[in-house]
């Protein structure tokens, strides 16, 4: 037989190839595994094991089209080394801010990569905090430990659109004063943006003048009614479980509290199954869930 009787199907040719410029658009997504190239333009140490990275997408066009919602995450790729999910903790003037704790191999390597190093970025992925729905309401922002990282994006959103929201309270607990993230911004949030900030630590040092204990203790300060408020709670599972139960006993409906789950992830696209909780993909149906949903997920916390 002369001509091949089966014609190759070329996925890259079938429709015009479109780089995944905006993962939030269900646009003609083809090369889902191709990443944006991002350059680390700045890396600042926030605490002993946490650094804040500014990553600027190298291609101007990609930079322009990159958009995200607070609560979403990206996959940060070190080519030839590994890829990890990291929440976006802010984006300004063309760069993405990532707050990364040295937890294992890949994160340790990111910490070592010098300024100017190029990393891969895929995303943003996942669900986000319903900032639209919260408009006009009181908001409680509650963080424990590194939970401040995913919480920072909603804080930034609130400060940028301050007039859209009612009273905003930030409750933040950490093990020790040295572990408090973004302490250099508290003044501004307080004075300029009118956010009430309460801090608490487990193990105070000599200089610490604030409250001592766990973040649940700060909830005692809250006197206003909660049935019409919203809460975003970020932190380790034990922490948000406590906080959310406390909040609901104080009258907040469970579907007005939002938490962000962390699971092992290898793709971010609902394919590798590593993040599955029951039937739920944390990467696609989460990482942001309301507490009611979390309670109904078996093995979630």
């Amino acid at each position, binding site marked *: 037989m002369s001509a091949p009787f089966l014609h190759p199907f070329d996925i890259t040719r079938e429709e015009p190839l479109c780089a995944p410029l905006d993962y939030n658009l269900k646009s003609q997504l083809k090369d889902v595994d191709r990443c944006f190239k991002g350059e680390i333009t700045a890396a600042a140490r926030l605490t002993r094991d946490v650094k804040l990275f500014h990553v600027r997408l190298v291609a101007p066009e990609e930079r322009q089209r990159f958009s995200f919602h607070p609560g979403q995450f990206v996959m940060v790729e070190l080519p030839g080394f590994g890829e990890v999910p990291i929440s976006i903790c802010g984006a300004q003037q063309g760069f993405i801010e990532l707050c990364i704790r040295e937890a294992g*191999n890949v994160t340790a*390597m990111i910490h070592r990569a010098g300024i100017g190093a190029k990393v891969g970025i895929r995303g943003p992925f996942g669900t986000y905090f319903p900032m639209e729905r919260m408009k006009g309401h009181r908001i409680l922002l509650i963080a424990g430990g590194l939970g401040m990282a995913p919480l920072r994006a909603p804080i930034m959103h609130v400060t940028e659109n301050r007039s859209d929201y009612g009273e905003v309270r930030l409750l933040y607990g950490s093990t020790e004063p040295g572990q408090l993230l973004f302490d250099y911004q508290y003044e501004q949030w307080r004075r300029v943006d009118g956010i009430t900030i309460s801090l608490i630590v487990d193990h105070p040092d000599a200089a610490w003048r604030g409250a001592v204990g766990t973040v649940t203790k700060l909830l005692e300060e809250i006197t206003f009614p909660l049935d019409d408020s919203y809460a975003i709670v970020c932190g380790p599972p034990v922490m948000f479980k406590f906080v959310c139960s406390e909040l609901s006993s104080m009258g907040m409906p469970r579907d007005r509290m939002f938490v962000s789950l962390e699971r092992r992830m290898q793709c971010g696209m609902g394919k590798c199954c590593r993040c599955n909780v029951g039937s739920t993909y944390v990467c696609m149906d989460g990482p942001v869930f309301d507490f009611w949903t979390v309670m109904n997920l078996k093995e979630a916390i």
Partner: protein
Amino acid sequence: MNYLGIKPVRPRVAIFGFTGCEGCQLQLANGEEDLAEFLSAMRIARFRELSSADEEAYDIALVEGAVTRGDEEERLLEIRDRARVLVALGSCACYGGVPRLKNCFDPVEMNHEVYGCHPRESLPTRSLREIVTVDQEIPGCPVAKVEVERIIQHLIWGLPYRFPAYPVCLECKQRYILCRFEQGELCLGPLTRGGCLATCPRGGLGCWGCRGPAAEPNYGEFIAIARQRGFTLREIKERLSFFGGLEVTP
């Protein structure tokens, strides 16, 4: 050459051999495709099997073989002192390996049988970690070169290497290899740490467990399965004790 903005260091590596077959050292000279890259990624301070160069200073010591004599123990302690990172290379170094099998025989009789009235010094076989702190183990009889490369890279970065948690069975299935149990043979694949690409089952031999246990070996169920398929406890124990890495419980 910079990699991700980091300049990789070329560590000084020394390779030593104790009681063993030197097959693991030999693997370092195998893997022809990237042998030049591999050897250039480090500065080989000492590799007696292949080189007469002998530098005193080194960062990483790769030690092959088990310890069966007093002088070996002394040398090991000295190497531990000098090396920043001590790596046990191969199953003999990690678990005692095949040389450990002699431990179940009477040492005096054994010596007499082989050397008559001129006995040789020989202590019970010990693995390196029974004597010194070992920073990294690379099991295998012999070690898999690809894995050695990955581990050396991790040592260069100073980051821990994570072995596959799964047992050999997964790789066996994924390579279309027929299960040895189905062929009526015994195989330690369900207990043994994967990562060898199921070399033995692929070559038509059950796994002998040279790489030590997988993350969560289920010994009890394994022995029950093997017995149910007609293997005697003697056979199962002989197999489990072969390379010294697995637990031998009745």
